[in-house]
């Protein structure tokens, strides 16, 4: 068995532990919960999901059977019926995981992954002198030495920013390079059906999250699954934003339900006096100069409220040719993807030192157990714990903010957008985007002047550790060489996307894709650059749980 990975037997134990805990926490409400589940599941199954007809049929049969039995059963049997539902949910979540196959995949991991991420087609492989590897385009930064130590002392939860479905593969690559044990994480069921990574993912430590299931009991099962796996010492990967950032901005609000598993697991570890009770949350930022799914994501962000989609399945991530184009451009332009590990935290949002001990805001060692105690006894208090999770959320958001790496594309997009916005201060975002047509162009000197001003502010922010600059942006800021920045930005913008985001014609710049301009600009949103207003705040608020 691989170190740090659960064996098949353990997975089985996790499932039964999850079901046991949920049933135990249900008091007189078994019947209510069954009705609730029936309602939500009927609702879900009433809209067909393409590609999942077989599963839908099995679900329908299962619930028809529950519905048939329910009126005949005495009240004492209701809990057993509920347990069947919970076990079904828990098995589905864990079911895609096959430790034996995982072991093989992990052993073959690096070559398989790089073949996947580089050649993608044998023909392409043979065309090149040697195999380009994505890992050469991945820059891993931050305190990586601590990660291994924290893994030895407790259980890790990696919480990255989420811009692309490539994120989990990038993390996978980094974990292998750092020789850290594999992580388990919840991947959307739709990803398992992805023609490119689906089969691969199935065996890569991922468990399944069906975002179409809105039943609260299902969400509870999911959270309990993550909690129990943490208690079993399994390192986890959570995308705390819940879904890929639609706007392109770094997440400023996180899903606290899943994050709350950290304090729950820590408390349970203490209650059971487990030897390594500590849970460490490690925020990390993944910064791409170009994002594979940018067009689809920003389209969704800008869709009128209510029309946006919870789940996106038909995006660039499922199309081979987009992968190929994306990777070709990453390689040919030598673009760098930055993966930066931030300050490790305890479940209360305190920093932890290099040896895994919690420290207070002034760096003094503290025992976090006290946060859960009243007169020396561990006390259960969900409202209190939710408050701790809020502190954790704030700390992670702060780490995202300061770990964000700014690329040339972001600066160029920000400058162009600012010039356009300031020229039409009377327009809201939608009208402004609508107003940007081929007839509007920006004079190169004007853009250069704006970039110069932005760079001064960016350099000051970087100096104050408020954000990070990619090597190119940092060099340009130091030498005042704005033309290099514009050139790199234009090259990247002119490559992967269907239309160049911005292109140069003579001494003028044309914005050919205003939506993507806003998307890349948003990566710099919220830093108060050039006194610009925050855009995500003026875009419509999305309802419901925006996953996918």
């Amino acid at each position, binding site marked *: 068995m691989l170190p740090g990975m659960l064996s098949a037997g353990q997975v089985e134990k996790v499932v039964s532990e999850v079901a046991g805990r949920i049933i135990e926490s249900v008091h007189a409400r078994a019947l209510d919960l069954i009705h609730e589940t029936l309602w939500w599941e009927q609702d879900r199954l009433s809209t067909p999901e393409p590609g999942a007809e077989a599963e839908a049929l099995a679900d329908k049969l299962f619930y028809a059977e529950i519905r048939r039995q329910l009126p005949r059963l005495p009240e004492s049997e209701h809990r057993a019926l509920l347990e069947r539902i919970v076990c079904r949910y828990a098995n589905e979540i864990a079911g895609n995981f096959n430790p034996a196959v995982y072991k093989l995949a992990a052993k073959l991991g690096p070559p398989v992954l790089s073949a996947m991420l580089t050649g993608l087609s044998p023909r392409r492989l043979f065309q090149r002198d040697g195999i380009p590897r994505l890992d050469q385009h991945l820059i891993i930064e931050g305190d990586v030495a601590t990660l291994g130590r924290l893994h030895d002392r407790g259980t890790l939860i990696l919480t990255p920013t989420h811009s692309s479905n490539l994120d989990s593969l990038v993390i996978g690559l980094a974990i292998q390079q750092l020789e850290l044990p594999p992580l388990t994480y919840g991947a959307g069921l739709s990803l398992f059906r992805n023609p490119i990574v689906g089969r691969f993912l199935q065996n890569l430590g991922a468990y399944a999250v069906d975002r179409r299931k809105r039943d609260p009991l299902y969400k509870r099962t999911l959270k309990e699954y993550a909690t129990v796996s943490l208690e079993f010492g399994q390192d986890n990967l959570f995308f705390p934003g819940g879904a890929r950032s639609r706007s392109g901005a770094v997440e400023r609000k996180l899903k606290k339900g899943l994050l709350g598993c950290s304090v729950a697991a820590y408390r349970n570890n203490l209650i059971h006096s487990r030897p390594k009770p500590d849970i460490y949350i490690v925020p990390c930022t993944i910064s791409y100069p170009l994002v594979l799914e940018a067009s689809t994501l920003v389209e969704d962000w800008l869709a009128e409220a209510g029309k946006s989609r919870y789940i996106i399945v038909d995006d660039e991530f499922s199309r081979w040719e987009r992968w190929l184009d994306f990777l070709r451009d990453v390689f040919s332009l030598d673009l760098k993807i930055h993966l930066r590990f931030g300050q490790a935290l305890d479940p*209360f949002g*305190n920093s932890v030192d290099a040896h895994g001990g919690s420290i*207070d*805001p*002034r760096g*003094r060692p*503290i*025992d*976090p*157990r*006290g*946060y859960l*105690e*009243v*007169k*020396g006894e561990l*006390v259960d*208090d969900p*409202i*209190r714990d939710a*408050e*701790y999770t*809020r*502190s954790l959320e704030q700390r992670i958001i702060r780490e995202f903010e300061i770990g964000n790496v700014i690329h040339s594309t972001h600066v160029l997009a920000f400058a162009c957008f600012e010039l356009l916005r300031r020229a039409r201060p009377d327009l809201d975002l939608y009208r402004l985007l609508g107003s940007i047509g081929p007839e509007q162009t920006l004079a190169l000197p004007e853009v250069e002047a704006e970039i110069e001003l932005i760079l001064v502010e960016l350099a000051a922010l970087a100096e104050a550790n408020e954000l990070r600059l990619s090597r190119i942006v940092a060099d340009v800021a130091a030498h005042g060489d704005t033309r290099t920045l514009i050139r790199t930005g234009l090259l990247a913008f002119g490559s992967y996307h269907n239309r160049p985001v911005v292109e140069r014609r003579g001494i003028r710049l044309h914005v050919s894709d205003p939506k993507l301009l806003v998307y890349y600009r948003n990566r710099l949103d919220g830093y108060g650059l050039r006194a610009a207003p925050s855009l995500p705040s003026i875009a419509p608020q999305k309802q419901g749980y925006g996953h996918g």
Partner: protein
Amino acid sequence: MVESQARSVSVLGAGNWGTTVAHLIGQNGYQVRLWARAPEAAAEINERRTNTRYLPGLSLSTNIVATSALEQAVADVDLIFIVIPSQAFRTVCAELGPLVRPAQLAVHATKGLELGSYKRMTEIIGEETSLRQIGVLSGPNIAGEMCSGKPAGTVVASRFPRVIEAARELLRSKQLRVYGNTDVLGVELGGTFKNIIAIAAGMATQMQLGENAKSLLITRGLSEIARLGVALGADPLTFSGLAGIGDLMVTCASPVSRNHRVGAALARGMTLTEAIDSLGMVAEGVKAAKIAHELMIAHDLRSPLMEGVYRVLYEGLSPQQGLRELMTGAVQDDIDPSLVRSAP
């Protein structure tokens, strides 16, 4: 989750309000440690049961044990009340940092924001110590009236129910009703900005403008406080509670309040320095006016009343001129639309 057992508690700060809080807890039958920075003050409380500088004539509860050693004051107590003036708050919290533990609860009773950083007191506690289960005590509570046993109500705001319960258990009595709130930010801001309006009320009283004018001041003042509070993230309904309108009414009505007296002194023609000197104490409203002025600029808000007080205090406008500008300014809606929208 209410526990009936007696809690150990300490109060940091033996000024007017800190001593009163300790006295009220002591009168409820709990042993309470009271920290005074000056050893003489601690000795006076322990030996003579008086605090002549702040509460002359009052015989303090015998349950109070005063100390000038901070470590002794907070060691192993369940709940710490922090009642330190805003300008000294961070210094005391920094000293407190190495002495406290995550299991301890804390409630502060300091009205004001940190100058320069605009930080609230709960934010300062969070930056300097490991304390997380924290809250704020605020409301219409004139120390003198509380000490003479007159009835009153107060608010404890915290995101942690246990903090509210613990503070309530210690403070509540036949004379004091303790209400809970979860809007920590709103309660802290209400207690801070009302002092600005109190300065205006002091001016109005001195100028004998009558009760109608005072009511106008209080109502419009509350509306400005709420508008600024909501812009900073508070719940608008908090301002209709004890820590909002409640505190504002008492501060504006009572001629003994420091802010009120500063306003009156200014209306008599004194300069700000003279007014502060004649008082011999800090009036939080003077600082709050500057902070509110800067916050209003930052958030692009219009608050004619608070702005008028600011200009009288810092730009040499006479109270008479200030008032004239107020009466001739553009009239807005009685209830600000931003408050209606943000009400849940």
